[in-house]
């Protein structure tokens, strides 16, 4: 534990406090093998203790070897967050005893981490915020514990699975720049979005691939000093983070208002009770006696290597959002929605292809956001039976005036249900092509006028809304396949004749 002996601001009711929140994110790195050995890192559904070898089991005489892909993923994260990559960084041993830690120490990075001093931007209620990133460092995950009890005696015991022990992990430490639970939630959302965009982590919080601890303190508004810091653990969802922080801020405020002092401690979020509870401190758990990992020489980061990692990094969400607005002329909120997930942004650009006029881009955006999203989500869009190419085919017909909007919706449904046919084939097979024949439309208009004398009289009497009934009748007669602009023009011509006559 650090030597912080900060005193809590004691005060009386009426003092205005502000929350000071910093988040520590642990994210598993998406690699095939573990951090320091060749065991599979795919632990999630594996039978217990099947991805374990002498290295991750901590048997005597073994040596760790660093997974290059893990270093690259963590480096890319540092770059994405605007950190400086340390030319030399090193691994240290963090020593403590726990059943899920077979070696008796975790290999981590202590005083010379991989990446330092970055920044993340996030948006909350339309306002852009910035928060500092202190550092990004690499480490290894621990095993998993399950709890059980003896049915005969009722005595509790624990079961340890070491498949997760040694899975590559990075810790992203944020500056205490957040001022509300909502800001913390938005920070976390933006962080996960970046990790997913650049493909370094699944960001799945429920599966434990993305975890968050928080440091929370209160201080009088206007004060630059920090209050006593409480660490909150055990928040297993985005909702839990915001709830836990809201609870903790109020808990501390009530203590301070009553003239009390905040104890510097670790508290666990209890989802069922909806409150944070002081955690029994594992005795001396914070006395980790870090020392340099003697089995791993310091890691030097060749600038050319770091440059190559940066060069193959995917475009970041904020950059892509700005580009969607400027390059394609999309509205700000459409650009934001389309870039929330990389899969959706990729789909949009694939569906747009080379036909990137502003008009076509907006048409494509509308069809994805309004129509396609009724059928798929950001998670399933990548495997949608309506591929980007098939949507492009549909929009080609629509934009080219070969079909109208009503028919396009019908073809869209067909495309979704018959994955082998493209839009043009569906239109041809079902005879859905637009009726663009002047004579046919004029005939249908004539029939509509004849059959709707009242509507005609209403229209000529000044009720312009009655015109819609005549358009509807014409369209119906043509099976909904007429060019709407043409129907309108011919209808106007025919009605004008009526007016003259």
């Amino acid at each position, binding site marked *: 534990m650090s030597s912080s002996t900060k005193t809590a601001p004691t005060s009386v009711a009426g003092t205005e406090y502000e929350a000071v929140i910093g988040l520590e994110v642990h994210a598993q790195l998406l690699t095939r093998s573990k951090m320091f050995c060749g065991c599979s890192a795919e632990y999630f559904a594996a039978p217990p203790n*099947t991805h374990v070898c002498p290295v991750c089991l901590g048997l005597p005489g073994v040596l760790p070897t660093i997974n290059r892909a893990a270093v690259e993923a963590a480096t890319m994260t540092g770059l994405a967050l605007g950190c400086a990559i340390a030319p030399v960084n090193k691994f240290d041993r963090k020593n403590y005893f726990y059943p899920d830690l077979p070696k008796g120490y975790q290999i981590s990075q202590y005083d010379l981490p991989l990446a330092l001093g970055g920044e993340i931007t996030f948006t909350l209620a339309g306002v852009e915020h910035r928060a500092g990133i202190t550092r990004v460092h690499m480490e290894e995950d621990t095993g998993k514990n399950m709890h059980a009890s003896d049915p005969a005696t009722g005595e509790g015991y624990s079961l340890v699975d070491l498949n997760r022990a040694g899975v590559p992990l990075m810790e992203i430490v944020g500056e205490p720049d957040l001022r509300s639970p909502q800001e913390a939630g938005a920070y976390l959302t933006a962080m996960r979005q970046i990790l997913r965009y650049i493909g370094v982590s699944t960001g799945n919080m429920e599966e434990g691939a993305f975890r968050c601890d928080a440091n929370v303190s209160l201080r009088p508004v206007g004060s630059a000093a920090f209050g006593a810091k409480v660490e909150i653990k055990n928040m297993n969802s985005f909702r839990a983070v915001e709830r836990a922080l809201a609870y903790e801020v109020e808990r501390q405020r009530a203590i301070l208002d009553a003239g009390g002092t905040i104890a510097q401690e670790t508290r666990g979020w209890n989802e069922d009770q909806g409150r944070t509870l002081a955690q029994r401190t594992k005795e001396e758990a914070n006395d980790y006696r870090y020392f*340099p990992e003697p089995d791993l020489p310091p890691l030097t980061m060749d600038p050319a290597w770091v440059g190559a990692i940066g060069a193959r990094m995917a475009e970041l969400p904020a950059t892509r959002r700005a580009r969607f607005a400027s390059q394609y002329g999309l509205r700000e909120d459409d650009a934001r929605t389309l870039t929330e997930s990389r899969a959706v942004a990729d789909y949009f650009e694939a569906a747009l292809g080379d036909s990137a006029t502003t008009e076509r881009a907006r048409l494509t955006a509308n069809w994805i956001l309004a129509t396609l999203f009724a059928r798929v989500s950001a998670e399933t869009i990548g495997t949608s039976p309506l591929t980007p190419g098939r949507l492009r085919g549909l929009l080609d017909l629509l934009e080219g005036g070969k079909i109208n909007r009503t028919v396009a919706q019908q073809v869209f449904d067909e495309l979704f249900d018959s994955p082998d046919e493209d839009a043009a084939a569906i239109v041809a097979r079902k005879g859905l092509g637009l009726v663009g024949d002047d004579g046919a439309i004029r005939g249908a208009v004539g029939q509509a006028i004849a059959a709707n004398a009242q509507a005609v009289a209403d229209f000529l009497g000044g009720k312009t809304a009655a015109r819609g009934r005549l358009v509807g009748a014409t369209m119906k007669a043509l099976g909904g396949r007429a060019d709407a602009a043409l129907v309108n023009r011919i209808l106007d011509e025919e009605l004008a004749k009526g007016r003259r006559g």
Partner: protein
Amino acid sequence: MTLTNEQVEHVALLARLGLSDEERERMREQLSSILDHIDQLRAADTSNVAPTAQVIPLAPALRDDVVAPSLTVEQVLANAPRTEGGFIKVRAILD
């Protein structure tokens, strides 16, 4: 620098070592003299020396991200005092 008994007990606890009174006293003396030696090293002027974490002039050999075979469950559990259903069974952990 002379360590107190409490400091020795604390370090012993962290290392999960039980010490007899006699051992504790011996450790107290030995650890104290090691710390004296460290103090002597700290007195050296290192302002012009780069921080050194390792004296072997080697960069670590990085490993390609390739999955290699693991042990069998039987091998993994061979040294575990108690097992259950492929897990290592331990006393209840208080999280």
